[in-house]
């Protein structure tokens, strides 16, 4: 049996990569993918601990995280589509109308 700490280590790495994606990449879609990745790493931790404590609640939470992710993607992409239609670019840095 692989100890849960390994899974944790893995999910942290994935999480870090996700964060790097968000911070570094300028393409909005890649950004979304990075977020999906981060969520996925969180799921991993949930399932790992669910196995460790033997309680299915962890998995239920994963289930909910998934639905949230799906909803978030749907809305996100719709946003990208509309922004693209008005700005003809999905570069995150172009969208800075709300400058202070």
């Amino acid at each position, binding site marked *: *049996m*692989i*100890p849960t*700490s*390994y*899974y*944790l*280590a*893995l999910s*942290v*790495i*994935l999480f*870090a*990569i996700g964060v*790097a994606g968000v*911070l*570094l*990449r*300028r*393409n909005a*879609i*890649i950004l*979304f*993918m*990075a977020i999906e*990745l981060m969520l*996925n790493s969180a*799921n*991993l931790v949930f*399932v*790992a601990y*669910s*196995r*460790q404590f*033997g309680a*299915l*609640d962890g*998995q*239920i939470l*994963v*289930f*909910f995280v*998934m*639905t*949230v*992710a*799906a*909803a978030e*993607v*749907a*809305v996100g*992409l*719709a946003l*990208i*589509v*509309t922004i*693209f239609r008005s700005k003809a670019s999905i*570069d995150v*840095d*172009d969208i800075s109308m709300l400058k202070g």
Partner: protein
Amino acid sequence: MLPNIPELVIFLVLAVIAVAAALGMLASSNAIYSALFLVVNFGVVATFYLLLGAPFIAMAQVTVYAGAIMVLFLFVIMLLGAEKMKQTSHNLLWQKPLSIVLIVLLLSISFYVVLGQGVSVGSDLMQNASGYGSPSAIGTLLFQKYLFPFEATSILLLAAMVGAVVLTGVRRQRRRIRKSRRL
């Protein structure tokens, strides 16, 4: 219960594939490639779920994440033709180095915590009876203890759908507003 070697090997191999796929998603300049890399990553994570005794979640992972969401991504990428991003100039000067520092910092802290003395991960992994992660178990738990969150998420999804439709269907709406103003 120390991990027996073959299991460890499988875990490490899969782990490496997952990380590689993630880095690939990150580095690839073409959006489609990164999307595909992500699909691979999701697949590997699904297998991890199987290892961790959560077959239903694994299946859900594959169908929902890899299937639905990534397909959506691909669809949007194709719709917008965003495979090749034209490099625009204004890059934020100190964005890149600071973020790398922060990521490294994050990694170091978490590793310190995870592998160090912090979390007593405990090796007494209980090997539950079979059908631990089976759909019937999850189903019973889901519809008893978590009934309310379940209903709430359904509303969330509904809202997301409506939102998406409204956002994208903007053109027809604008014409109706302009007409009312002219009356």
